[in-house]
């Protein structure tokens, strides 16, 4: 496919700065190779992975609800979040805790959310970030609206939003791109293309050669980046954010990665995909790749690795304890934040909920058959 009139190249070049074996590209700028920053990325990705392991084991032992891990996809969240300013706004999907942690979400908040407790979405930090979004693609137009608001209010802030490869099949995604293009809102769309939408492979989602090229029809810039290369993700997102911040409008970035785990803990991927393919993908994963580079630069040692794992494990343990020891929810929570002020007509319903909650607490049988 060649250039079209608008000056976009439909066949976008994949941006990669760090090869799967950890060699840095000549194209990498000096700042992209900033070792201090790369160590920060490495620590953040490792922290997310250790958290994911723990969350899955909590689910397996009945201490957490269904959970969606970011295994193998840590570079996208970390690279993107690191390119954002604190004041910017994240509009996530439901698999974006790598980015959320980087932006200050507590692990205990993430656990509360997946543990079935709304308090997990009341973030202590990054208070304008949107909560997780489960109805796929519905977040995309919201991100455009949020960006419009920031633009209208002349705030020097941009919006970054995530969506999965499956999500790009949904009408709301196209509508969002289109509106963002018309209004030139300061928003960066990042597609986490992990190859799968539950059991549906990328090729059954779209006949388009790339998902990045969906930008073309909306008249906005599209980029494709190796999503397992945190250096490239950071570079590409940083540029898109700079552009958005300076009034240049939206960008769509397709980050290519692979879902190394099950879709969620409720899924069994062995039903629909070949474990050999998954094994092969492990040679491309983002953490080992960056480690290889850091080690080759003499910037990372076995001792530092051990120390980092210990630190992360301790943090995870503290956060799990905070989650498990969270004050019990009572039935009032259902009514508390429904409206700014609970309408009088709902007061009796809250009373009734209290009356029956009391009974079940007294062991009088809340008998679910």
């Amino acid at each position, binding site marked *: 496919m060649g250039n079209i009139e608008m000056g976009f190249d439909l066949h976008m070049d994949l941006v990669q700065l760090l090869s799967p074996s950890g060699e840095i590209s000549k194209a990498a700028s000096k700042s992209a190779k900033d070792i201090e920053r790369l160590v920060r990325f490495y620590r953040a990705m490792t922290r997310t992975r250790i958290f994911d392991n723990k969350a899955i084991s909590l689910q397996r032992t009945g201490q957490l609800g269904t959970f969606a891990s970011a295994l193998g996809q840590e570079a996208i969240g970390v690279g993107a979040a690191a390119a954002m300013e604190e004041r910017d706004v994240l509009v996530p999907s439901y698999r974006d805790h790598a980015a959320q942690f980087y932006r200050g979400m507590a692990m205990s908040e993430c656990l509360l959310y997946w543990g079935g407790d709304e308090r997990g979405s009341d973030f202590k930090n990054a208070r304008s970030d949107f909560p997780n979004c489960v109805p796929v693609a519905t977040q995309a137009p919201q991100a455009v609206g949020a960006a419009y608001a920031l633009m209208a209010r002349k705030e020097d802030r941009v919006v970054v939003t995530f969506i999965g490869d499956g999500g790009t099949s949904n009408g709301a995604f196209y509508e969002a791109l289109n509106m963002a293009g018309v209004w030139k809102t300061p928003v960066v769309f990042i597609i986490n293309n992990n190859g799968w939408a539950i059991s549906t492979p990328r090729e059954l989602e779209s006949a388009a050669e790339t998902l990045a090229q969906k930008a073309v029809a909306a008249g906005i810039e599209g980029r494709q980046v190796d999503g397992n290369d945190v250096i490239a993700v950071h570079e590409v997102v940083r540029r898109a954010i700079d552009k958005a911040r300076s009034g240049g409008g939206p960008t769509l970035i397709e980050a290519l990665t692979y879902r190394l785990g099950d879709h969620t803990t409720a899924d069994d991927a062995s039903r629909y995909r070949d474990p050999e393919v998954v094994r092969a993908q492990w040679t491309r994963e983002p953490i080992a790749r960056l480690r290889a580079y850091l080690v080759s630069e003499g910037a990372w040692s076995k001792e530092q690795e051990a120390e980092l794992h210990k630190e992360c494990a301790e943090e995870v343990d503290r956060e799990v304890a905070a989650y498990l020891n969270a004050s019990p929810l009572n039935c009032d929570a259902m009514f508390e934040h429904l409206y700014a002020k609970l309408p009088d007509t709902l007061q009796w319903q809250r009373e009734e*909920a209290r009356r029956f909650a009391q009974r079940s607490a007294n062991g009088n049988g*809340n008998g679910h058959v």
Partner: protein
Amino acid sequence: MSEITLVEAVNLALARAMSEDKDVLLLGEDIGVNGGVFRATNGLQARFGRERVIDTPLAEGGIAGVAVGMAAMGLKPVAEIQFSGFIYPAIDQIINHASRMRNRTRGRLTCPMVLRSPCGAGIHAPEHHSESPEAMFAHMPGLRVVAPSSPARAYGLLLASVRDPDPVIFLEPTRLYRLFRQEVEDDGVELPLDACFILREGADATVVTWGAMVPETLAAAEKLEEEGVMIEVIDVATLKPLDVETILRSVEKTGRCVIVHEAPRTAGFGAEVAAEIAERALYSLLAPIKRVTGYDVVVPLAKLEKQYIPSVDRIIDGVRQVMEAS
């Protein structure tokens, strides 16, 4: 004959419908190789091929719209919406087209499609996976709305839904998918789509319910029997068109009525049942009608869902209230 679960009965009915009618096809997200996230379509793609069991892109509005087009052109699509929390974009196609294709074209084009979707809370699912949207569909002219509550009724009602010449919304309570087994004969015999089922007879009070709340209501009936109160339990099964006569006959006999549903109270389908009784059997009532429903709140995440779903205790309390009045 073998004992099967409700979700297996759905599978059995789909297989039956597909083998008896080549125009029946299935579409939805993850329904093929994966057999659906609840396994309702397990094995059907292997058996009937990828052209008749289609893994669609992730697009609920598209799925419903495609089904409308297929149905108008002679196929009999059975579309799955993975969870009813994601059904809303499909509603545009359902209310603006599926439900009125026949009417708009004076019968020239029709829309014999089924939209299946799991619904309800109680399985510790994530956000937006626990909705009970039946009243929204019941409000739309031109649709049938069905809510099975047992393996046998799921089998017979789904077969009837697929064979029906008009669009049917088929809401499957996830809580009941694997709750119990029942003997279901794969005999291709359908159940009527215009009848309520009396699951238990009783002279003291009528309790009208459907879908996920049926087992709780039956459990309440057993406990009440120990107190000497005999309730008649009616499973509405097909909410639209509603078999009002069966409900009225029961209320005329008992003089008391409790309506139980999981969806929020305001403008829930219970309001419709209550209104029919008030209009047509008011003088038979010995006590005001009582509704026991979900509260008018957003269905909470897992930690509080038990507090939200009407409990056996709340149902018993509701029955006692109508027994004590007058």
